[in-house]
């Protein structure tokens, strides 16, 4: 079959919502797009452990410590599923991690912001995991089988994280004046970066159109961002807090909230490496990896010794 036929057959499957599996033929660009997107998502989970990990040792109660550790551990699990999904496309985990460390692969910019108070743990769960869910729920139906299956597991846990985050803010919002101020401050700092998690406007988005056609993506950045704003603008009322946007207003005609202009200069700055914690986050990942090198080598050496001994015994 000439390549065109493969391609049209592939697109027919996509159009009919048939999942693409690892052994199926796929256009090279489809494969590359998926590797880029899935590995970027996996890296986000792993780097995302750092800002929240920053508060594990200082969590204010045993219960909160337990919830936080379990949450950060869930993110490690998400990283694992996603690396495994990407590996089905013919790239190894080590290679992907190498790309993260060299700066070739990106991760979500949100994790380049610092976690300054305990309320940031709640705000991250509510806003950051919340935005992640908006982005990810449609991915449960994405065209590539292993990715969509990984996302189904991930999304279940992410919505749990979001509820926990909101609940933790709710407790603080009913607490002392200091705690309430902490919540408002955390919302003020995390709101705009959360909106940026949906990526550039549709008109500026590099990869969107092709990804929609291949059903890797199913909704546009702006659509998802609007849904998120509509949801959070309501939930924030339950906390008795406000969002830091003077232009936020319900628009009867559109049946949506209008909201202010995003600071894209900040967005691109952080993406290109100049956020408050870019260097720190990447350094922490590299350090963990480098410090672990001898451990991984030892595990490998021991496994080989053991295999050799078993073979000898069997002979």
């Amino acid at each position, binding site marked *: 079959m000439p390549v065109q036929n493969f391609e049209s057959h592939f697109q027919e499957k996509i159009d009919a919502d048939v999942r693409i599996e690892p052994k199926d033929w796929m256009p090279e660009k489809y494969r590359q797009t998926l590797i880029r997107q899935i590995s970027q998502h996996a890296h986000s989970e792993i780097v995302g452990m750092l800002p929240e990990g920053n508060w594990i040792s200082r969590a204010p*109660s*045993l219960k909160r410590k337990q919830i936080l550790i379990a949450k*950060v551990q869930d993110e*490690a699990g998400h*990283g694992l599923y996603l690396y495994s999904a990407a590996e089905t496309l013919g790239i190894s985990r080590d290679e992907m991690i190498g790309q993260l460390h060299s700066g070739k692969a990106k991760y979500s910019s949100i994790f380049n912001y610092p976690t300054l108070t*305990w309320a940031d743990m709640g705000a991250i769960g509510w806003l950051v995991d919340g935005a992640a869910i908006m982005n990810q729920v449609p991915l449960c139906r994405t065209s590539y089988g292993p990715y969509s299956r990984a996302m189904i597991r991930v999304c279940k846990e992410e919505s749990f994280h979001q509820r926990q985050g909101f609940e933790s803010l709710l*407790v603080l919002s009913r607490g002392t004046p200091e*705690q309430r101020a902490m919540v408002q401050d955390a919302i003020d700092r995390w709101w705009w970066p959360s909106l940026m998690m949906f990526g550039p406007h549709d008109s500026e988005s590099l990869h969107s159109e092709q990804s929609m056609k291949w059903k890797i993506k199913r909704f546009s950045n702006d659509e998802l961002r609007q849904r998120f704003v509509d949801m959070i603008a309501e939930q924030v009322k339950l906390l008795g807090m406000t969002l830091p946007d003077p232009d936020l207003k319900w628009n009867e005609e559109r049946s949506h909230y209008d909201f202010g202009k995003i600071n894209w200069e900040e967005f691109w700055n952080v993406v290109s490496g100049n956020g408050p914690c870019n260097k720190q986050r990447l350094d922490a990942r590299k350090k963990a990896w480098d*410090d672990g090198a001898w451990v991984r080598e*030892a595990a490998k050496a021991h496994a080989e010794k053991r295999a050799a001994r078993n073979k000898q015994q069997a002979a």
Partner: protein
Amino acid sequence: MNKELFIYTLHLADNALILAQRNSEWTGHGPVLEQDIAITNIALDLLGQARNYYQHAAALYNSLSDHDKNSLEGSLPRPWKSFHRELQEDDLAFLRDEHQYRNLLLTELPKGDWAFTVLRQFFFSAFQHLFYQELLQSSDPQLAAIAEKSSKEVAYHLRWSSEWVVRLGDGTEESHRRMQEALADLWMFTGEFFTAAGYEQAAATEGFGVDVLLLREAWLKKVEAVFAEATLEPPKQSWSQSGGKSGQHTEHLGYLLAEMQYLQRVYPNTTW
């Protein structure tokens, strides 16, 4: 109830909490993702055990007569005394001073490298594994129930840490050297497992606790078996450090508590 049961329960709680705190320092920084998850799991199990013990200790205290309460004065969190409400698990964890903590010194040592962490876990889990078999028979039903629930977790901790001791001991030259260094640093802290504090002696006599002295031989046997596979040798040296069980700690605990307790100290009696 007696005074010793309260202190004894705190001692068990403190061991679990402090080691959980140390292990959770690895979360997000493990040598490989699967092991990051594994050490975090152990931290979570230990934290769960600690909560069970602290809740038990708080309930024990709250049900005491005023006379008995007074006799425990020195073990109570100072700031809590001005709250005028019942004692809670978090008061015990976050508001006691360093010298009121009764954990083993072994648990409070900084996490070190992966060799140090897995060897400490192995020593501790090998001990806890034996300990819980005995605590199952505790005359205190709550302690027996915690032992039952925890022993399943600890069986896994022991298997996991034994495997790592073997892997690193019998891995590369570097990993073997690091294990030996960890061993040289840790060995002197293992004697404290078997040096009973006063409240432990009382606990054993009265039947709610374990005679730790009796666990020594089985513990050594387990260590020797795993070490043989790991090509490591238990040091001959018999000098041991102790004091943690009675509140005399290393310099490390103060920093650990300062960090862990910070929010509860800055915002006393606040709900989080």
